[in-house]
């Protein structure tokens, strides 16, 4: 028998909490050009940088003229100096460094894509390859994100956090939106979302194989089409079919119809502060693994160490699970505490 002062002290991992005013980084390439300075307040969707398309390395013989500062912005044909032999910039981009042999190495290309702020906030710093933004609202961290940071109005595409979004449900009405797609999304639905102009998908889980297929498809599309709009896939909980955690689901429901963002670094859904939800009761838990994955309920007691399948000994608790999706009735189960997440404080 485990002696605990209260069930609320059971050794259970807390669920991912909301981060207040999360700090996110928007990564830039070597030749990208920031359009904002530190201290500036930006709104969601504001342009904050120009992305360099098709960047390439250029070598320019300086011939003894004054060396440009590392990181200096270059314009196509811009004179770099020289009296008898004029030296000009090889294109749009940035100076990287001067080789020991006196050659300027720079990264050049075309500034055509606009990078937008994924949420409103204050620019904390503009670094050589990142803009650091302290956002105004709240954020929930995900397991991974693929694509580019994006913004859009939030559309809940499923009725329950453990549903899956059917391919046929994605149409042009989703253009410009960030769609909540439930417990899993496959590569067909992702590709269709992209084609219909959806700006992002938020999902509980993804099959690794689908993720890789989609990443390959994205890479092909970006190589073929110029200036494609940003698209992001945010995975909240893991791999395979993983219902969206209840705390995040509740916040997403609150945020439906509002402008939200997806950040890449860290992987995070960025919401309006007004969508913050009240904490759950202290004994509320969610099964995060095993047969009951995704089901929520109340922890009734910590039973003690029990032998589980394959002879594993683990601390288990008795949980009263509520009715689940697809007609699962309420039931009481013994569950390993390590497979539970605490939803309350």
């Amino acid at each position, binding site marked *: 028998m485990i002696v605990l002062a209260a069930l609320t002290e*059971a050794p259970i*991992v807390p669920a991912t909490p909301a981060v207040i005013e999360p700090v996110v980084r928007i990564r830039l390439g070597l030749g990208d050009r920031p359009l904002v300075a530190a201290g500036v307040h930006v709104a969601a969707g504001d342009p904050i940088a120009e992305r360099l398309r098709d960047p390439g390395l250029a070598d320019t013989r300086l011939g003894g003229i004054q060396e440009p500062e590392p990181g200096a912005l270059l314009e196509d044909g811009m004179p770099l100096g020289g009296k008898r032999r004029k030296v000009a910039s090889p294109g749009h981009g940035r100076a990287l460094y001067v080789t020991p042999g006196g050659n300027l190495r720079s990264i050049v290309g075309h500034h055509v894509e606009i990078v937008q702020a994924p949420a409103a906030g204050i620019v904390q710093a503009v670094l050589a390859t990142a803009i650091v933004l302290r956002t105004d609202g709240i954020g929930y961290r995900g397991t991974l994100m693929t694509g580019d940071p994006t913004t859009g109005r939030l559309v809940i595409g499923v009725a329950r956090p453990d549903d899956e979004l059917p391919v046929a449900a994605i149409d042009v009405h989703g253009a410009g939106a960030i769609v909540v797609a439930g417990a899993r999304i496959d590569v067909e639905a992702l590709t269709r979302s992209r084609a219909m102009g959806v700006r992002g998908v938020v999902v509980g889980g993804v099959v690794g194989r689908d993720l890789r297929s989609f990443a390959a498809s994205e890479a092909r599309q970006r190589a073929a089409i110029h200036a494609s709009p940003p698209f992001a896939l945010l995975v909240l909980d893991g791999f395979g079919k993983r219902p969206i955690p209840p705390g995040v689901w509740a916040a997403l429901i609150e945020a439906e119809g509002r402008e939200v963002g997806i950040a890449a670094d860290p992987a995070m859904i960025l919401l309006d502060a007004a969508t913050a939800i009240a904490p759950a009761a202290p004994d509320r838990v969610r099964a995060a693994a095993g047969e009951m994955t995704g089901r929520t309920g109340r922890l009734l007691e910590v039973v003690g160490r029990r032998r589980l399948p394959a002879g594993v000994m683990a601390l288990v608790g008795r949980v009263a699970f509520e009715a689940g999706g697809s007609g699962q009735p309420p039931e009481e189960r013994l569950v*390993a505490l390590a497979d539970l997440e605490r939803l309350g404080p």
Partner: protein
Amino acid sequence: MTERLPAAFAIDHGTASTTAALIAHVDGRARILAAAAQPAGAPLDPLLAGLVGDVRAVSPELLERMDDWPALERFESATRRPPSILVLGPTEAAVAALSWAAASSGWRISGRHAAEATQVVAICEALLDPDLETLLIGAADPSTVGERGQLADLLAMMAAALARRPDRPEVVLAGGAVEAADRFEGAALIFAPAASQRAEVGSDPLRDLLAGLASARTDARDPSALPDGRVALARATASLAALLDRRIELVDVGASAGTRILADANGILGQVVRVDAALAPREAISDDAVADQVLAWSTIRADPATLRDRVRNLVVAPWRDAAGDGARLRLAAGRAALERLDEGWRLPATPDGHPADYTADLLIVSGGAFDVAPAPAVSLALVDTLRRPGAMALAHDHARVLAPIGALADEEDRRRLLADLLEDALAPLGSAIVATGIHSGRHRGTLRLTTTDGASDQVELVAGGVQLLDLPPGLVATAELTTRDGAWLGVRSHHLAVEVAGGLGGLLVDTREIPLRLPDRPERRRDLLDAWQRPLWPGTEG
């Protein structure tokens, strides 16, 4: 634990789980009364309260003076995520040598580049990465003619990039790169010797320096200021080797890195800390090949895509889903990690030029992957992966107290506590005999096991197989191998006798090849692994 105090907690804060043990003086010596583990994010006090409650429920008299248990002394160590390092060098050979030094001393390699024109963009991006904390650049000492031009280009790139950074990443200049120190005024420079071209695990000036830096960097990140668990584990292994006057080998597979240490009475002979030997390396998320390294040891029947996702979920939340197939997947991940720990395990030759001695009298295993499997299956995982001929005793640091004990500053304190706790801290898995050269046929040979209490048992050896003989904890026996064609146990002979100790897993006799040859086809490989493991894991359903 000092003599004045009745009890203490030994706490190992891992990256995935926290383990605590309640130690108290009983009949004049320290004993482990209870131990338990929980996910790393869960609050600690309930775990400690649970240990006290467990002991009170069974033997309340042991804890009479312990009403104020929160005030008990705590020996703690913390294992943190390894720091990352960018490795640059003028040539591929230089980068390979530097990368080995960093990767084997507890660093995650965030990028490695040789100075080639095709790498300029990648190198500049890596140098300007906001996550860059430490940079290692090196060349031969003095740099060779072939390196000088490339090194100069690389240094120009570095100087330009570092001038654009408002922060001050640590720059380790190794070997010939030290000459360029004056180009990095204001940078946090560390001077290091050149990397050895021999990728070995013995003491090496650059590896030792990098190991110290890795430990200092992770310590600096953690406000708790607890001693580094990996350093403490190495110290505890050395203390144990000195205490027992034996060669002790320890392998620890953690969620963020794997550690292997070999020590004798004179100190540590070899040591590696490898990020790629973690239970489930982070790279498994983006790289199917890394996930497949785990699946290559799996006995679970399911489609590869589903199993890869289970491996990825093991990276995301290593504490979840530990029962049933989850336990078997963990042991497969543990095997893959042990295999990686064995890949680069090369000890330096002795000072008089003799080949290094890889044997150990006692092999200790530690880490969450081995908590979920029965002792015989853990023994099998060890002999599957750390293959060498001979006999050795196997033990499990089940309560993970070695690292907290290693965190004690005083060597005498460590030895005294280890001497007291030896039987409690190291659960005896049993012994293993790995013998090769046994042929199938009429005269395969026999093994006679004679225990110190006089009992004797004889079995016929199975060529190319695994046999488990009952040898309970506390018993010591002599194992005699008799073969007509001779067997190889480090030495070749027709008749060999070795002393073996009993344990929870008994005596494992392994006559398979070294290295282990497994079928290439995944189904056949899985079936063969399952055929070896299934008899050793009770409760395995079809």
